[in-house]
């Protein structure tokens, strides 16, 4: 790639630039700062759309009373129950149980705090579903 051909499409870098390697007019390799490439915007959005759809599906399950609000916050942090278990130090089967509304509602504060720490949320926020009064 020639330095003059390095894409400068505003893509996913939010005003930042990334370093690309390209050849200058003399054929020497130089670092060219790039505002981004349309291609990376497309594939990045593809991945983030999938995460958004998954989160919306979980949100509806929480609203319907089929999953606990913990399931929502876990998904919002791009975690599954395995990763959440690793981050809290709780057993996987316990985390899975806590994704059920009735089990979650009975959790003592110290377990809630562990989830809060792992998800970067204060406990009050952990108990709330964003965009609702619950």
């Amino acid at each position, binding site marked *: 790639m020639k330095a003059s051909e390095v894409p400068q499409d505003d893509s996913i870098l939010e005003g930042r630039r990334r370093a690309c390697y390209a050849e200058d007019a003399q054929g020497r390799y130089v670092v060219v700062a790039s505002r981004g490439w349309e*291609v990376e915007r497309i594939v990045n959005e*593809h991945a983030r759309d999938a995460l958004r759809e998954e989160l919306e599906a979980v949100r509806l399950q929480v609203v319907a009373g089929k999953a606990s609000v913990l399931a929502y916050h876990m998904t919002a*942090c791009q975690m599954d129950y*395995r990763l959440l278990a690793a981050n809290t130090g709780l057993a996987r089967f316990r985390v899975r149980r806590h994704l059920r509304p009735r089990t979650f509602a009975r959790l003592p504060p110290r377990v809630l705090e562990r989830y809060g720490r792992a998800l970067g949320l204060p406990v009050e926020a952990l108990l709330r579903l964003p965009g609702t009064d619950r």
Partner: protein
Amino acid sequence: MSAPRSFPHRHSGHCETGTLGALLRDRGLDLPEPLWFGMGSGLFFLHTGLLRVGGLPVTAYRVAPLAIVRNATRRLGIRMRYERFRDDGAAARRLEELLSQGLAVGLQACVYWLPYFPSTMRFQFNGHNLVAFARDDAGYWLSDTVFEEVVHCPPEALARARFARGAFAPRGLLYYPESIPADPDIGGAIRAGIRSTCRQMLDIPLLPLGVRGIRALGRDIGRWPARLGTDRARAQVAQIVRMQEEIGTGGAGFRFLFAAFLAQAATHLAVPGLQDLSREATAIGDEWRQFALVGAHICKGARTDAGAYGELAALLTGLAAREERLFRELRAAT
């Protein structure tokens, strides 16, 4: 707000080579990023459904995290120290102790928890590398080499990023050079790096890795829409292209960085033909960019014809042949 000490930050294509280069530059050994990449034999290819991230097969255009640091420093005779910790308190105390001695320290961290990343790029990925070089009351000063300028980070965020769990969990890892030889054998390290790169691209038995991995993916990818359905096939293509272009590879899945390495190697080794091989690596990189372009058209839904996946397959088959020839010639030349 300005940092309490200056640091020789340099905008880099890739986090691990950028971090390694910055740590050594701060200690007086200033080498360009492509040399670190090549001396660390960073180039690779792997695509396997046996490992999955978010349900998608893992694709990698480089070797495992930290392998570049370990290999490049070993080949130059630099002694590195690596420290991991049981809890974030001990990790933070040790980091502050080293910073207060004026040392700069390499850290491994999870991208998701680093607040200075663009929101679009905050994914759960534990293999990110950066330099911490100073502390003030509000937090840490970091040289994250994939960004243009140094950044400032609150301590809670950095602690969280250093202790994220899951695949490649950093466990608070910090690393720094303990001793650097006065006159490191750069030519020898380049030669060893090239030989090792050729081995991992050509010689790994049985498993489809390196060049054979590219070829195997080329055989497979044309069947994805029929076997997996459109949505799934698109998601897998998107994932490959992201690993190639989005995560900081210097472009074309490290192929341009490798081409730059070969060009710079030519100034250290009396090996004829390295410049030509560098140009060929550039042409290969351009073809990988073409692969990314077609892949993006498929993801966007701009290409729904059956020919699009066939085009990806043909590009990969051609790339496998070209890379195989490149590494055979490189091996013969050095």
